[in-house]
């Protein structure tokens, strides 16, 4: 062969070729003997292509401008090191980093399972609150004070409901 396949992890000639089909998509990994051993590909007791793909795509390319989660201070470098996030808000902050990885990691990229009712209600109240806040700003700007007063009352109501939903 003119172009022998190289190991996806270290670049040595690859001798182990693994194919996994997830959601009718073919995922291929080429590894050298050593990396295959190290990653447990030859070990029947446990091997996850998802983990491997995740780590492989996390390791290379040193990125210049690192992203940081405002909520918890977790950085992209932390994510590369740990493969785990710092807090739920990290998913917003690192959306761009994560999105290209999800397709390889999972069957799909959108949740279709169970939905927790309270969390959803909370989210819709939150969205409503954001919208009302915008309405209020506009009303004040346009000097529609009656509207502003009405919106302000509504904001108060929604806030009360929100606190009720959040209290545990």
């Amino acid at each position, binding site marked *: 062969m003119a172009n022998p396949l190289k190991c996806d992890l270290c670049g040595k000639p690859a001798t182990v070729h693994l194919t996994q089909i997830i959601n009718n998509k073919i995922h291929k990994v080429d590894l050298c003997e050593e990396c295959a051993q190290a990653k447990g590909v030859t070990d029947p007791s446990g091997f996850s292509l998802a983990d491997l793909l995740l780590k492989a795509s996390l390791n290379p390319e040193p990125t210049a401008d690192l992203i940081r989660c405002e909520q918890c201070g977790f950085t992209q470098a932390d994510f590369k090191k740990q493969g785990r996030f710092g807090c739920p808000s990290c998913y917003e902050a690192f959306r761009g980093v994560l999105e290209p990885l999800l397709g390889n990691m999972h069957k799909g990229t959108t949740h279709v399972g*169970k939905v927790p009712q309270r969390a959803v209600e909370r989210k819709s109240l939150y969205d409503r609150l954001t919208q009302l806040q915008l309405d209020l700003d506009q009303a004040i700007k346009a000097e529609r004070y009656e509207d502003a007063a009405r919106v302000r009352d509504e904001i108060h109501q929604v806030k009360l409901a929100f606190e009720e939903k959040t209290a545990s």
Partner: protein
Amino acid sequence: MKIAPLFEAPAEVADAASGKCAIVLTTRVRLARNLVDQPFPGWAKEAQRSAMLAGSMEVMADLPAMKKALTLKVEELSDLEKQILVERHLISRELSTTKHGAGVVISRDQTTAVMINEEDHLRIQVMRPGFQLKKVWNAINALDTEAEEKLNYAFSPTLGYLTACPTNLGTGMRASAMMHLPALVMSSQMEKVVRAVSQLGMAVRGLFGEGSDASGSIFQISNQTTLGESEEEIIKRLSSVLNTIIEHELNARAKLLENDASKLFDKVGRAFGILQNGRLLTSAEAMNLLSLIRLGVDLGVFAEVRRPVVDRLFIEAQPGHIQYAARGAFDPAQRDLLRAQFLRNEFTNFGQPDFNVTGKN
């Protein structure tokens, strides 16, 4: 000892099912859940972890399903107690090594355990003997809904339940079955099975999860992916994979019997002899011998009623349980002595094997 109440009842896993489904020892489903506005346990400061532990422990212990539950803080447990909990699959190895602010709430019947501050804020698990994926899912689904009444779960409409590791996103669910596959191991077909199963997006692990060996021919089969598929779909897909593996194991058994029944029965008979008379047994050897006895029960060599006994011994022959039974800490060589003694005792009244069973199955 804080975990003493666990010994009043037999471990849930020891009360196994019978018949064709005996190949599946236990079924387990776990859900990863996190709370809004709180750093994940691995990134949280000690004070945040402690607050999370205290708060969620109280909430979980208050749920009706967890009445009279055992609440345990990892830092207050001895090494031996932690080991026993791991051997009973009530906590993970990862949880047992955490230093601060981690704990577990275990239901009285040991079917339900909620780990707090493992990789995620909450890891809820429900475990039942035999092949009962749907039942287990219904039970854990109800428990999770009850917990959600009290807790603010971190959830995104597009990504589902937000978990510390993106490999658990979506449903946050791992459904698994512990399978006893001696004939596939004996006929060297396990590697083929592992490859086929992993191509279907399912993972195969040893008895104690990631990186553990497959002594006793016991394997854990679980879903690998969590996003893009509903819980019901995952469970349906896993069930069909499990059924296929059961079929292959039964075929492999039939083939072993057909080709050389005496070779197979010889293995079972020798295992019985060693368990009755051995003086030193490592836990790996004990697991392999017990595995052969369990196969013997499935083939009709021993009475059906002995299967739960073997399943109990799978757990009680583990190092932690051996030391607990002997009330002390012992080094591995002493444990092997104690283990052999314990098993000799158990097998004194086990009943003699009857090898005239060809065609009985």
